[in-house]
């Protein structure tokens, strides 16, 4: 799933490890989510949203919305 995680992290000058520690996951998880290789569960997506103090849809791009734009 496309997302703005890398950008949001960069804005705060956090490394992947910093973000991983804040989310209590492995750095590999952060990397997999950032690169769109792994879609986080809803609880983890909420943790990410709460950490950045943003709604989930401002971090993750809805696949259906993305495909409708393409049409």
């Amino acid at each position, binding site marked *: 799933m496309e997302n703005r995680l890398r950008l949001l992290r960069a804005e705060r000058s956090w490394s992947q490890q910093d973000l991983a520690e804040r989310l209590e996951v492995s750095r*590999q998880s952060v990397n997999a989510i950032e690169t769109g290789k792994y879609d986080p569960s809803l609880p983890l997506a909420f943790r990410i949203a709460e950490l950045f103090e943003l709604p989930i849809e401002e971090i993750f791009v809805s696949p259906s919305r993305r495909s409708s734009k393409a049409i």
Partner: protein
Amino acid sequence: MTAGAMRSSAWKRYNWRVIWLSLLYCFFLLPAVYGFKHQLIPDGLKYLIAVLPALPVVGLFAAMGRYLVEEQDEYVRMLRVREMLWAMGFTMSCATIWGFLDNFGLVGHVDGYWIVVLWYFGQALGALVNKLTLGASTC
């Protein structure tokens, strides 16, 4: 992905369980082999002594299940589950194919406990698939 980063506390606990179960396996197996070889085991205990070395191996599978319950990192857990699914598919496929070949007398009979060895080989195969498809491996 480095292997070190994959070592969660759940994974460390799993490894300790594997070490203890392996020691228990040796503890049961060596006397059983010696006892059967030298015909020291009374008839009434033969089934029990023969099954005892299998129990720690069964415990290895229980330890895998426990690990999946305890692993807090959902991405790492997904990688492990993928490895286990590959291991299951690989093992079942090999056992089925060999079973038919054996049934038609084309290959020799293989002891059932080799299934466990195949399982671990299948897990390594799953880790390789994770590496190739996701760029991530738990090995």
